[in-house]
């Protein structure tokens, strides 16, 4: 090949290369819709596409028994028990139960209830919309309180779990503990799954 010094050839190459660069700049913006189109076409990477059927599926509600248990710890001189010991419930329906607590000591105390569910596999199907265990309770000497729990059991709960036991342990919060932990922190760390 001989040397091409023809300025016309050089100019046309120059134009083509500049056009290629401009085209690639446009291509970067074309990637925005292309990205979605590719994912749709190949059926990949769309989180909402894979999870949407899961939420849309309507599982048939079924019935089960739920029991309520309470425990006082550290020789806590409080009365603490559920007003209902057990009940038959249907999944996907909302229920409210009340717990009774009374401070029998001679001084003001702050307590915190820690929940747990047996069998533990049931934990992620228990949906609590309100619970006294989300916050701390401070009672004057001799004062009593009725504390509600509003809950629902997800229909996705396997039917082999015919009985769930919801238990609460009451702990006294010492003065420094009570101030060190905000209720939010405690509830956040104690709330496993979707409870």
């Amino acid at each position, binding site marked *: *090949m001989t040397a091409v*010094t023809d300025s016309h050839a050089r100019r046309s*190459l120059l134009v083509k*290369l500049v056009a*290629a660069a401009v085209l690639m700049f446009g291509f*970067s913006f074309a*990637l925005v819709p292309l990205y979605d189109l590719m994912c749709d076409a190949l059926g990949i990477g769309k*989180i909402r596409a894979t999870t949407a059927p899961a939420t849309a599926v309507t599982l048939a509600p079924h019935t089960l028994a739920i029991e309520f248990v309470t425990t006082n710890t550290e020789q806590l001189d409080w009365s603490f028990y559920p007003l209902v010991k057990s009940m038959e419930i249907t999944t996907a329906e909302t229920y409210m139960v009340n717990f009774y607590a009374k401070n029998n000591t001679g001084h003001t105390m702050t307590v915190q209830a820690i929940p747990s569910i047996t069998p533990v596999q049931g934990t992620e199907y228990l949906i609590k919309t309100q619970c006294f265990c989300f916050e701390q309770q401070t009672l004057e000497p001799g004062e009593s309180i009725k504390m509600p729990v509003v809950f629902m059991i997800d229909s996705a709960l396997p039917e082999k779990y015919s009985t769930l036991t919801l238990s609460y342990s009451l702990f006294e919060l010492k003065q420094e503990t009570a101030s060190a932990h905000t209720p939010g922190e405690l509830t956040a760390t104690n709330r496993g799954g979707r409870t």
Partner: protein
Amino acid sequence: MANGATAAAVPQSVPKRMIAFIVRWTTATNHKDIGTLYLCTALLNLFLGGTLALCIRAELFIPGLQFVEPNFFNTLTTMHGLIMLFGFIMPVAVGFANWLIPMMIGAPDMALPRLNNMSFWLLPTATIMLVSTLFMDGGAPNFGWTMYAPLSTTYGPPSTDYMIFAVHMLGISSIMGSINIITTIATMRAPGMTWMKLPVFVWTWLVTAFLLIGIMPVLAGAVTMMLFDRNFGTAFFDAAGGGDPLLFQHIFWFFGHPEVYVLALPAFGIISQIIPTFSRKPLFGYRTMVMATILIGFLSYIVWAHHMFTSGMPYGAQLYFMLATMLIAVPTGMKVFNWITTMFRGSISFETPMLFAIAFVFMFTFAGCTGVMLAVAPADFQYHDSYFVVAHFHYVLVNGLTFAFLAGAYYWYPKFWGRMYNERLGKIHFWLSTISVNVLFFPQHFLGLAGMPRRIPDYALQFVDFNFISSIGAFVFGFSQLIFVYNMISSRHRGAPASDQVWEGAEGLEWTLSSPPPHHSFQTPPRVD
């Protein structure tokens, strides 16, 4: 340098000479002048980026926070990355291209000299703009050189907009440089210089230039979207507005992965010139070398998402990107094979350029192997964003490419300036660098495997020993580069005069010119048989 029109003027008063000096270099259009400007700028940026790296290693010498705030540490890693990539490795490659391509293809100069001048002067302007963000309120960009959204959009400091503008300018500079190089190679070859007779360095730069034209506009697009998200209320990368932060990673790595080969291919080219010279044999497998270069260029476009294995990609996509990435090891392996086979049964002599070239082959191959490890998607979940990744790409970029460019600097120094460098100092520089760079980066593999994350100013106690060793290596490596600078500067006038061929086994058009070569390399085109 003495050939410049204005430099020949009779010495006048100091201010007048200074003005003449500034005018001479700011208006330079000669390919050698531009090449020199690129190389000097790259060297300055190497030390700038290196200083930031030493700040990082000083902070990591021992656990705890000693010298810098965590946020400033993040700006250190970000600016170190940006300056080294855009300010050092890319310009040093363009500098060699400017110097060598016209001489290698038998041309008098580059095809578009004025474009060349503009593409150079955008570089220091953009670099100064980038570095100025370090002194701004709110600090410099602190989200890493990868600029992931939303760290760079919603949470980026105000100086991010300066960085975006600097990246735009650097991109325009690279695109103009690439257009110039392609045009030069396509239209200015000497009679008889057919495509398959081009030196491998020219071939690698041809592919690199096409890569740059393909990817720099995409980076420009990514930072433009970032600019729009930051200032004009768009939501390209904001899920709340219907965008997708992962889209940024896809667009960025569509640029980012070919960019790796933009940096690597010119280094491959330099090594392919040096090894035959000192083995006194022609390059083994020229044709496969060219094919491998083109193949690497092509493959580099279709593997980008291996940087994103942990972003929640579907398995099919992970499998594809894993296999495609491993495929790149094939043409790269061909190159390594050819270099080794070129040396095989050659009469090798170990001058400084050859030492650096051999060290490159060793350490770059090692870096390639850790790269294949990282390509394995299930294993990558452990390595991702750990010091193992840091060790891997520093073996590529420092132990590999930087060594190749140092080899090139020693190899062509006598040709460029007509004086030999000091061989003894060169060897001292080589051995100090090679040992210290391994002390610096090798322990980082272990740190990464043990779980130390990257971009972190403080670390757990089990990482103390390896960090300590690594930092010692960093300071020795950093300061031993001063030997190189001293050698380059002092040999400029004191070195022994170099012959035209310089090296006994050197072949190619550039060695037929005088040392230093005339201002306009080939006034009459040579005939290549």
